[in-house]
């Protein structure tokens, strides 16, 4: 090989690699674009407010207002209503072109919403209270699940069969300032002293529990507990609201005060489609879980059975029978947030614990189609 061939090959091989990879990438984009998913015909009756959405049949992409929604986690059954509305083109019927911003481990939806990078987002009561405390206000516009479904769990084989047994045991924490207060309160409520060891984990807490590195964790019944059941693990489950912790909404849909001021009409339209999606999911667990699966890329849910089982658990829990989805009560917005403040679990921007907040400014029902 002479000098020129060598130079040519040295530059040619990397260039070829870039071209091949870029070609494969573009081909893949092209192949994905050609397989647009059609909406399935919808079965069953809908709320009167939602009926108008289905009269619309040919989805047009013209004259749509772009809107972005930041997810709080990888797609799961907490998000089903949003995916139902997407699958049925209800957002398009309301003139909205909705983009989902994927979950990011380093940027919370609260930050994206308060900086205007997202119009709406999925967050939690804890997040909203902490945001208000540091002057990064977001407003909850709907409760996705009416009652708290989180619980402390232990392995059944551990013999820790009630919360007071957890005294002196090791808790796998996720690093929130208020969680010690919550766990301690649960143990005391059951007659224990509320003293326990705590290690902060950045890994799957259930894995740590199964490998006996820790004794108990705080998880969601709708996901982790159902997964454990599917794998045949026996767990003791202590739902936190059964042990003296005030009930609260989690997750919530949030937006920013600026958005409320500037685009109230858009939010109202968004909430109509979303609320109808969740109402549909309440009545049709199987169909809605299928839409959640279909709307996401292959591989999002390695175990579709988990999605169906989780949806069966959650559908009746989005709201109690006879109550409309999404509505929020003052009692839930005063009880748990005050408990958080009392436990010194919430700091202001300078790092000092705060003891009062205007809780009524943290939520509104005004954008729900069923009014407040």
């Amino acid at each position, binding site marked *: *090989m002479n000098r020129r061939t060598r130079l040519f090959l040295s530059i040619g091989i990397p260039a070829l690699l870039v071209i091949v990879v870029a070609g494969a990438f573009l081909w893949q984009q092209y192949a994905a674009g050609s397989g647009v998913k059609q909406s399935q015909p919808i079965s069953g009756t809908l709320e009167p407010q939602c009926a108008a959405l289905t009269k619309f049949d040919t989805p047009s992409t013209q004259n749509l207002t772009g809107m972005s929604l930041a997810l709080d986690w990888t797609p*799961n059954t907490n998000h089903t209503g949003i995916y139902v509305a997407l699958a049925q083109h209800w957002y398009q019927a309301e003139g909205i072109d909705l983009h989902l911003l994927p979950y*990011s481990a*380093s940027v919370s939806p609260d930050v994206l919403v308060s900086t205007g990078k997202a119009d709406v987002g999925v967050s939690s009561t804890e997040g909203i209270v902490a945001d208000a405390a540091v002057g990064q206000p977001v407003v909850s516009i709907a409760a996705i699940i009416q009652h708290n479904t989180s619980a402390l769990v232990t392995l059944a084989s551990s013999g820790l069969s009630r919360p007071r047994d957890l005294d002196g045991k090791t808790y796998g924490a996720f690093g929130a300032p208020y969680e010690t207060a919550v766990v301690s309160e649960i143990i005391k409520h059951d007659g224990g002293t509320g003293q326990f060891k705590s290690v902060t984990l950045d890994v799957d807490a259930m*894995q740590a529990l*199964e490998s006996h590195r820790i004794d108990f964790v705080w998880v969601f019944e709708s996901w982790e507990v159902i997964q454990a059941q599917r794998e045949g693990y026996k767990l003791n489950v202590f739902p936190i609201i059964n042990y003296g912790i005030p009930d609260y909404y989690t997750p919530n849909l949030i937006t920013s005060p600026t958005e409320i001021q500037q685009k109230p009409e858009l939010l109202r339209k968004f909430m109509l489609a979303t609320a109808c999606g969740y109402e549909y999911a309440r009545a049709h667990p199987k169909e809605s879980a299928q839409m959640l699966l279909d709307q996401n890329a292959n*591989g999002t849910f*390695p175990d579709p059975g988990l999605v169906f089982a989780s949806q069966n658990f959650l559908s009746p829990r989005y709201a109690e029978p006879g109550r409309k989805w999404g509505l929020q009560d003052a009692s839930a917005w005063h009880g748990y947030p005050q408990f958080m403040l009392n436990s010194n679990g919430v700091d202001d921007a300078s790092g000092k614990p705060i003891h009062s907040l205007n809780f009524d400014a943290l939520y509104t029902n005004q954008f729900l189609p069923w009014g407040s």
Partner: protein
Amino acid sequence: MKLRWIASYGPAFVLAVALLAIWELYAGIGHISPRVLPTPIAIVQGLINNWGVIYDNTIQTLLETVLGMVAATVVGLALAIMLDTSNWMRRAIYPLLITSQTIPIIALAPLLLIWFGYDIGPKVLVVALYSFFPIAVACADGLASAEPELMKLLRSMRATRWQMLWLVRLPGAMPSFFSGLRIAATYSVTAAIFGEYVGAAKGLGIYLQLEANSFATVQVFAAILVTAILSLLLFGLVSLIERIALPWYHGAIARTM
């Protein structure tokens, strides 16, 4: 020569197989939950069964990696040549270059996302940020260590600055440049995955996250396996180009061994 070359990897191969066998036996017989530690055979099966999805995500990550590497190579080379143009430049730029590497990118990640969004751009940037440094430093050192006799000779022949660079210093710096490039290639895939972790719609990093959140440990390991293979292939490709570009250098190494 070829046989000998393959045989030289024998010990590494035997060690890898032995480690895998111990792992398989330990995880298989020890009744360890596959969620805590899946066996190598289960991981390969998971990879084969989910190949379509993993391939889709791999292409995305690979594109980010190669674009990032190209950018890093261009920037790294340019920086190295700039550092070499004068002592003054070296003193001005070198400290800044080192400082740039002390910034934890994980702390900047949220800002990268808010500034540049969810597209492929910020991931390419993260790969380039991770990779340009070893290239620039290694190449600059290579340029600085040109043989003084050769330089004297060229100067006596009234060669221009650029002629000296092109004829002696740059070819002389090539072995160092490739060392830097190899280090960069090793890190680049992981850097792309880190960039995806910050926020993306697709890619091996996202796949890892999805599978971890769905408790599919086998697929998590399958994605790790793909990452390792990609890194090794990139490393191998850099070595191959080095062999093509610098036959004299490799000839010399083989003779001294």
